[in-house]
């Protein structure tokens, strides 16, 4: 398969970037999107040009590092997959594909398609943890947890922190990410101790980082590679109200 690529190139955070056109030829349909970029980069290196910088790590959809806005959508046109698990068979032969970084003030571009997502780390540091003692692994069934709560916590815990929700949202809102973290811990007994402080501090940090508020367009849920439900945002709102009132 052949593709015309339009890729965002930017030297560093202080230089303005621009789109540059490339073309790749004879790509097998089972090539992943990132492998296709690897092939392009090998060609660029052979020509003594600067390869395209993009984030990636596991390449199996679990780490949340890959973060490409492809053909108008975060992680590309396919639902519930990360960019690394997107394969070229999802595109038409000869298609023009735009590749650009997440666009949001709190996610500044570091280079080309790599953005700095440490704003998410600071939100986690503000409360996305439990102060449980560490040590050897406790018995899995030592603390009984109702199935319903365990399921909700597990669903929320599947958030990989990729930031596609922010990238998809017209407000660059981090509400789905924060909701997933708050909901995950609030549904478990281990998360009860810091429950109130957690939601207050995480929302405060989210606002401080400059993420927008939620307009309930549900673009985040549609684009989230893990299918995190916006029901968690409703839960976050209630948690926040309760914590404010108590």
């Amino acid at each position, binding site marked *: 398969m052949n593709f015309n690529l*339009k890729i*965002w190139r930017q030297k560093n955070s202080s230089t303005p970037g621009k*789109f540059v056109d490339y073309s790749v030829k004879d790509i097998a349909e089972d090539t992943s999107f990132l492998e296709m970029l690897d092939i392009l980069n090998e060609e660029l290196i052979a020509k003594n040009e600067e390869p395209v910088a993009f984030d990636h790590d596991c390449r199996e959809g679990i780490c949340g590092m890959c973060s490409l*806005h492809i*053909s*108008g*959508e975060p992680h590309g*046109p396919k639902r519930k997959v990360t960019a690394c698990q997107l394969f070229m068979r999802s595109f038409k032969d000869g298609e023009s594909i*735009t590749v*650009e970084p997440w*666009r*949001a*003030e*709190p996610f500044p571009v570091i280079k080309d398609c790599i953005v700095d997502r440490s704003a998410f780390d600071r939100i986690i540091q503000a409360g996305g943890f439990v102060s449980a003692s560490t040590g050897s692994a406790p018995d899995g069934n030592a603390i009984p947890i109702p199935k319903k709560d365990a399921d909700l916590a597990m669903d929320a815990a599947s958030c990989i922190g990729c930031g596609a929700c922010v990238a*998809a949202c*017209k*407000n*660059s*809102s981090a*509400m789905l990410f924060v909701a997933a973290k708050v909901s995950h811990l609030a549904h478990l007994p281990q998360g009860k101790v810091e429950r109130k402080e957690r939601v*207050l501090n995480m*929302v*405060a940090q*989210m*606002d401080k980082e*400059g*993420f*927008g*508020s*939620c*307009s*309930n*367009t*549900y*673009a985040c849920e*549609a*684009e989230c590679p893990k299918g995190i439900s*916006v*029901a968690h*945002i*409703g*839960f*976050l*709102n*209630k948690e*926040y*109200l309760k914590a*404010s*009132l108590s």
Partner: protein
Amino acid sequence: MGWFLRFLTSSVGQKFIQGFTGFFLISFLLVHLAGNLQLLNPNVEVAKESFNKYSEFMSTSMIIRILEIGLVLGFFFHILVGTVLYFRNRATRPIAYGDRRPSKNSSWSSRAMMLTGSLIFVFVVIHLINFFVKARFQGETDMYTLVKAAFTDPLLSSFYIFAMIILGFHLNHGFQSAFQTFGLLGKKYEKFIKGFGTTFAIVISLAFAIIPVFFLIGLGGK
């Protein structure tokens, strides 16, 4: 007091204000519609008498005066917070995407709340000048005849009908959105509330829009 300020200035708290005032405005729409539907009585004499009596009550009653203050405040805070959120949210993306396909992940009504809201605001101002100011401040008592005269003008009628369609879009998103904001859009009722919201938006905007159509096609008498 500290917690209250923190709540009201937070992104989550401001959504609560938006949802709360939005619901309040919806309740106003229902009352307003119920009053206006008296205009549609095919017996012109009866319609005229009941509507004029109702208008007189609305522009002289003390209770209505007090409720009016609430309504003005409701509109004021809804518009204020909506506008603040809009501009703050817009500022979060100083560099636009080169290729963006929002229709793939969200509905037009959900993305155009500021646009539809602003059009509703323009409508409300014109609407107040047309009717409210005349009844309240210029001593007009025959509101039925005034409404009839206004709506036999095709231009004004079309504007009203257009505005009601826009209101329908605002409500289509707004209704279920407020439930979501309050965390009431549970899995069990999600489909029902979304369906109900859309039906509600269509019914409300059609019911309001029927009034100018009614007079435009001469059903309100010559």
